[in-house]
């Protein structure tokens, strides 16, 4: 188990180093002079040189990279050009809103996807199955930047149940969470269904039924527990879709999280903040997937002992 953990940790570290390198290179991909783009054409030469020196852009690329890395190790991600504050502070301010949205979305996804998928599998080819899978098809196909505005139109403007946008009171998280979870529910319920279908045909299910166990208990205790293994992995991977979707969903609802900060800083050409947001979201994703891998190995000994 220890070798497995070490292997995965090392792998994740390498990937994170790669991610950091790409994020660092982002600012060098800007066509033209990034300093000029950030400050606009009216800026004085002196201002430009100050910013250039502050960003370290006057130094060789390798030196810049070294500075960037050592800064990151001290959680120093530079200073925002627009807000004139440390980027790390900005991120800490915005993080709770995104974490709340992600947590509610995840909860909603599990509460919806598990029953949908299980019922669809147990009553295969029934009307319920067809309906659940049609919903799933619709869910993966509907873009959240369209679903969001429609939900606002119906539930905020017409019915007045929820606030239109922003972050005010517990009700304001409902519509963004529904928007963000629809796609996830769609993918996950499909996965639960196919995973359940596989498990339902196993011998131990027949045995459990044969010994007179109540059907509900057979399905939940013997079926679901085994079917959940692949679902956990998918959930870890889906968290990526959630984080990326949060950027768009937060923009739709003006939800003051890291995603909205990303878009705002792209618009105000505040590139150090853009870099930090992309880095934070991606590293979170890598860490979550690492934890999923480890949890999976812990639950299922076949993985850690199978030479992984």
């Amino acid at each position, binding site marked *: 188990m220890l070798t497995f953990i070490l292997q995965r940790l090392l*792998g994740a570290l*390498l*990937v*994170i180093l*790669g*991610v950091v*390198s*790409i994020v660092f290179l*982002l*600012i060098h*991909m*800007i*066509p033209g002079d990034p300093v000029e783009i950030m400050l606009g054409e009216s800026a004085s030469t002196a201002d430009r040189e100050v910013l250039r020196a502050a960003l370290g852009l006057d130094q060789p690329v390798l030196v810049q990279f070294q500075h960037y890395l050592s800064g990151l190790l001290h959680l120093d991600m530079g200073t925002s050009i627009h807000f004139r504050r440390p980027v790390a502070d900005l991120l800490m301010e915005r993080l709770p809103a995104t974490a709340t949205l992600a947590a509610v979305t995840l909860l909603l996804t599990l509460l919806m996807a598990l029953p949908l998928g299980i019922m669809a599998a147990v009553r295969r080819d029934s009307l319920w199955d067809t309906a659940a899978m049609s919903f799933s*098809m*619709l869910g*993966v*196909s*509907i*873009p959240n*930047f*369209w679903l969001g*505005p*429609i939900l*606002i*139109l119906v539930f905020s*403007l017409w019915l007045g149940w929820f606030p239109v946008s922003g972050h005010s009171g517990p009700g304001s998280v409902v519509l963004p969470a529904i928007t963000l979870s629809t796609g996830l529910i769609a*993918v996950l319920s*499909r*996965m639960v269904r*196919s995973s359940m279908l596989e498990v339902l045909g196993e011998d131990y299910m027949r045995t459990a039924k044969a010994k007179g166990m109540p059907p509900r208990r057979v399905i939940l205790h013997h079926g679901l527990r085994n079917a959940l293994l692949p679902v956990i992995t998918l959930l870890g991977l889906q*968290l*990526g*879709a*959630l*984080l*990326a*979707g949060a*950027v*768009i969903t937060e*923009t*739709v609802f003006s939800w003051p999280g890291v995603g909205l900060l*990303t*878009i705002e800083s*792209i*618009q105000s050409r505040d*590139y150090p903040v*853009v870099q930090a947001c*992309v880095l934070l*979201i*991606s590293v979170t*994703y*890598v860490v979550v997937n690492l934890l999923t891998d480890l949890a999976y190995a812990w639950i299922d000994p076949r993985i850690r002992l199978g030479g992984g």
Partner: protein
Amino acid sequence: MRNWLSIKLPVVILVLWALLSVTARYLPLEPDRIQLEEILAVPGEAALLGNDDLGRSIVDRMIVGARTSFLVSAWVVSLSLLLGTLLGTVTAYHGGWWDRTAVLVVDVFLAFPGILLAIALAGLLGPGIGNVVIALTIVGWVGYARLSRAQVLSLKHREHVQAAEALGTTKWRIIRKHLLPLMAAPLIIEATFGIAAVVIAEAGLSFLGLGVQPPEASWGAMIRDGTRYMLVAPHMVMAPGMAILAVVLSVNLLGDRLRDKLDTSTPSR
């Protein structure tokens, strides 16, 4: 009935999408003509889908938007497929150091969730259809590289490949004649679903203001413009949204059918 809904209608929708996109240039469209007296006009006899906040015809803009989304998906999917397959196949066939490096690079790109990297790239490169294609291709090739690597790894020890190697066939010829034809089915399935992903991604970038430059039309940008007038003119948001949904749903439905037909071993997404 079921057959009609899940095959014929999607085919009709996609053919219509492609036809409108290809012919958009030659149709008498005026997507940029501002008619102040028609501002936010609701759909009716004068204009099939109404007019937007500048009094521009929504039908005309929808057709130009169809062209944008068609062009971007055609370019991004072809470029990604070509690049990803080439890289994945060659490195996996070589194996060893080549393969390990490629796996690391793919893992690093996959560490950026969804279109986050594309959002950052498009934001930094600036708006424009070319930059959207570049940004989405940089994100898109990875999936094909990973898929073709997995395929090559399972194919390269097959007997027909070993026989070809024993006969002294060149690597390039083995890849071309003995590997690629067998990899085609899963790659085509992946590319089909890729179209749906790119249509949503392009519209998403345009929705965020990072896609095509105004006054150029894109379905995503039309939704963005419409959200400001939702209470008075919901048709501005409905029309482009329905179009995206129709195209993406059609692609996904046909992709599912294609997967069932061509290959049952591909894991479901």
